[in-house]
């Protein structure tokens, strides 16, 4: 009572949105919050947590978007997050968004939520689609049978959102305790009753949890609930009783209890569906089935996937090219020249450091924006799930899953969003493996390096040589992934149990938000890290063991050789002796650590030529063999600073360091082999 009074005084309610994936959860969240949200991480894990706040009738609603889930077991990270939020944070209302066109599976989660003791409001979404498919849902009847409000909506059109807000506020102020929904049969119900009575003896447990839910979970053998019970002074009694009940029921039912409970829950759901849904006409073949027949076809499936992905990149690069040139001109010429007119240190820091560094990142933004846009389109339409389905067999052979496809594909644009998107892989082992292999995929920042070097030494075969780099990247990513999964992240495969969502008309707004969120993260992360890196390298270039050299060092090779960068270059040259790279090429690699495309600009400075004269300088510094080894080294040697920062954020410092070390060793080894084998077979000349 005190608690309720307090809540009414400030009139602030905590609301969580829960639902299956692909039912319009993000659209509903954006519709409710008007798109104003802040993003954080769930405690302890890097699954994204979105929170928004709105005002309804003088009350504040704090809306939390829970991960998309199918059930509430202790097995999946997402499911545990959702469950723990509901249990520990005790939200005033849980809005359960359910797809009206696919109610049977959606209501399973609804029933599980109500069983937990959550104060549920059902948002029956996509009612228009259900009607199109020949279903009619009786929402009053459904509400009556579930004992919770049911609000029909069409979230993409904003229909029903106001009614939903009203229902949420009403439910929050009522705050009813739901009764048991599913009847598990007299034998099981008897044990549930006995068990929940003991649970209620511990007042702390009874206050925090719904005792019936705890009892059911204990009978299911839920490890997370068992761990929670272990903290109770009555844990012995409760767990002993639970174990005894499980044994008793197992023999009297003649089967496993977990399966029996899930089955009973689905039986109840079938009953709901039978009584609340009128089937008008069931269309024999849906559009989804027809499209699937083609895109997952035995012969055409894989060519279609390759074509779709190739088109995404071709489209992105072609459309973005003039924009990239514009940005390049803006930073490289206009701003640079403007800043360079400033006298002394400040002008140099601004021009050679900040503008060059920031410009080198921004030049990729148009490319990335269009790649993200196209991939978000493929995702939202529902195609990416099919692409994962088509390649899963190959990925499984490599000890990965089809779900690793999207992160690796995004990696061709930029490794950062690729690594971030591994969040969609539920299995921790698969996720880490994919994230650590992703930096080996040749991102668009590496292309300028290949173009200059291949242009200088392989003039007739530039295209082929550049392609070979991309293929090399894919091969090493897959080899390393297989090794990691077998040696570092051992464990059984969690299978490929995934929904193929029906194809949907793409929503411009949702694609826009997805694209912008990925781009924004790239800009912030890359921007801040690269800013620091650029300034550091600038400082190392204008100072040396002999003290301050002056900003002229940046434009003069002989002076630059005396700087710290020169010292590092000569040091690296010794390490790279077997490959025969000079100190300039070696020092350029050091710059490449900030962002790989900087290697080109750095080489121009180090050789003391303009970017136009670089081709000549490079062709003099390498033989075709050492040049090819150099390109392979640039492909593999170290993820850029921003990528390392993302790996640190996603998986921790340990994995970031591990990535840096393994990639360096791999790159050295590969470059060494290329030069060694090449020389042996007589390509050394």
């Amino acid at each position, binding site marked *: 009572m005190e608690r309720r009074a307090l809540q009414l005084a400030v009139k602030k309610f905590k609301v969580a949105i829960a639902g299956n994936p692909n039912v319009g959860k993000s659209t509903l969240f954006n519709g409710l919050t008007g798109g104003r949200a802040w993003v954080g991480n769930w405690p302890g894990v890097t699954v994204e947590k979105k929170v928004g706040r709105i005002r309804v009738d003088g009350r504040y609603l704090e809306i939390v978007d829970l991960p998309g889930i199918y059930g509430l077991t202790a097995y999946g990270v997402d499911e545990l997050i959702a469950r723990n939020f509901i249990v520990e944070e005790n939200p005033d209302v849980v809005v359960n968004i359910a797809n009206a066109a*696919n109610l049977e599976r959606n209501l399973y989660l609804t029933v599980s939520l109500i069983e937990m003791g959550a104060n549920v409001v059902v948002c029956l979404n996509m009612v228009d689609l259900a009607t199109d498919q020949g279903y009619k849902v009786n929402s009053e009847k459904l509400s009556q049978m579930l004992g919770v409000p049911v609000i029909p909506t069409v979230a993409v059109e904003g229909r029903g959102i106001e009614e939903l807000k009203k229902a949420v506020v009403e439910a929050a102020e009522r705050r009813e305790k739901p009764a048991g929904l599913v009847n598990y049969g007299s034998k099981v119900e008897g044990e549930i009753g006995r068990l929940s009575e003991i649970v209620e003896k511990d007042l702390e447990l009874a206050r925090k949890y719904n005792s019936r839910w705890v009892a059911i979970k204990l009978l299911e053998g839920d490890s997370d609930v068992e761990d929670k019970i272990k903290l109770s002074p009555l844990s012995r009694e409760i767990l002993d009783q639970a174990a005894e009940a499980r044994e008793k029921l197992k023999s009297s039912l003649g089967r496993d209890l977990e*399966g029996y409970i899930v089955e009973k829950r689905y039986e109840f759901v079938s009953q709901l569906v039978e009584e609340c849904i009128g089937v008008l006409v069931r269309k024999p073949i849906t559009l989804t089935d027809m499209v699937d027949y083609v895109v997952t076809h035995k012969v055409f499936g894989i060519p279609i996937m390759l074509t779709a992905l190739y088109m995404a990149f071709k489209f992105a690069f072609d459309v973005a090219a003039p924009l990239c040139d514009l940005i390049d001109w803006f930073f490289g010429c206009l701003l640079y020249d403007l800043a360079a007119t400033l006298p002394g240190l400040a002008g140099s820091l601004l021009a050679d450091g900040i503008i060059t560094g920031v410009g080198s990142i921004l030049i990729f933004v148009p490319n990335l924006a269009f790649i993200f846009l196209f991939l978000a389109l493929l995702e939202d339409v529902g195609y990416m799930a099919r692409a994962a389905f*088509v390649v899963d067999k190959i990925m499984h052979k490599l000890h990965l899953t089809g779900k690793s496809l999207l992160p690796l594909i995004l990696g061709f644009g930029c490794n950062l969003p690729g690594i971030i998107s591994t969040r969609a892989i539920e299995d921790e082992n698969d996720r880490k493996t994919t994230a650590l292999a992703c930096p080996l995929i040749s991102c668009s920042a590496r292309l300028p390096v290949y173009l200059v070097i291949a242009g200088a030494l392989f003039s007739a075969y530039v295209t082929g040589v550049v392609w070979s780099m991309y293929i090399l990247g894919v091969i090493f990513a897959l080899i390393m992934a297989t090794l990691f999964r077998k040696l570092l992240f051992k464990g059984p495969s969690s299978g490929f*149990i995934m929904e193929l969502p029906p194809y949907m008309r793409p929503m411009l707004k949702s694609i826009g938000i997805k694209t912008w969120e990925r781009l924004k993260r790239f800009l912030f992360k890359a921007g801040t890290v690269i800013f620091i890196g650029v300034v550091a390298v600038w400082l190392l270039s204008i100072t040396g063991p002999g003290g301050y050299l002056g900003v002229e060092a940046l434009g003069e090779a002989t002076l630059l050789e005396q700087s710290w960068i020169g010292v590092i270059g000569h040091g690296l040259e010794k390490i790279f002796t077997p490959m025969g790279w000079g100190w300039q090429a070696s020092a350029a690699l050091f710059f490449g650590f900030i962002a790989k495309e900087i290697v080109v600009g750095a080489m121009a400075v180090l050789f003391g030529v303009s970017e136009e004269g670089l081709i000549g300088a490079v062709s003099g510094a390498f033989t075709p063999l050492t040049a090819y080894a150099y390109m392979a080294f640039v492909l593999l040697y170290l993820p850029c600073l921003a990528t390392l920062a993302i790996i640190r954020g996603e998986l921790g410092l340990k994995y970031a360091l591990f990535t840096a070390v393994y990639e360096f060793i791999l790159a050295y080894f590969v470059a060494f082999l290329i030069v060694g084998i090449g020389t042996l077979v007589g390509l050394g000349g």
Partner: protein
Amino acid sequence: MIVMGLAKEFRLAEAEVGKTYEVVRLEGFGAVRRRIMDMGLVPKTRVKLINVAPLGDPLDLEVKGFNLTIRKSEASTIIVKEVGQ
């Protein structure tokens, strides 16, 4: 002849495209088994094999009005029997 009407039981991995089956029981254990059940593949549920991926694995099933993918290795833990069309 005593067992008339009792259809032959076999594993879902051996199913034929386009045919409808009924789940009899689930073997397997742990997280994968529970996930299969949570997705609606519980005994007495009807399941239709819609398609097989180009390389022969995974399978595309229709269960409770939606499409579910599952690898053959998981499908071989699901015992089904054939039902009429």
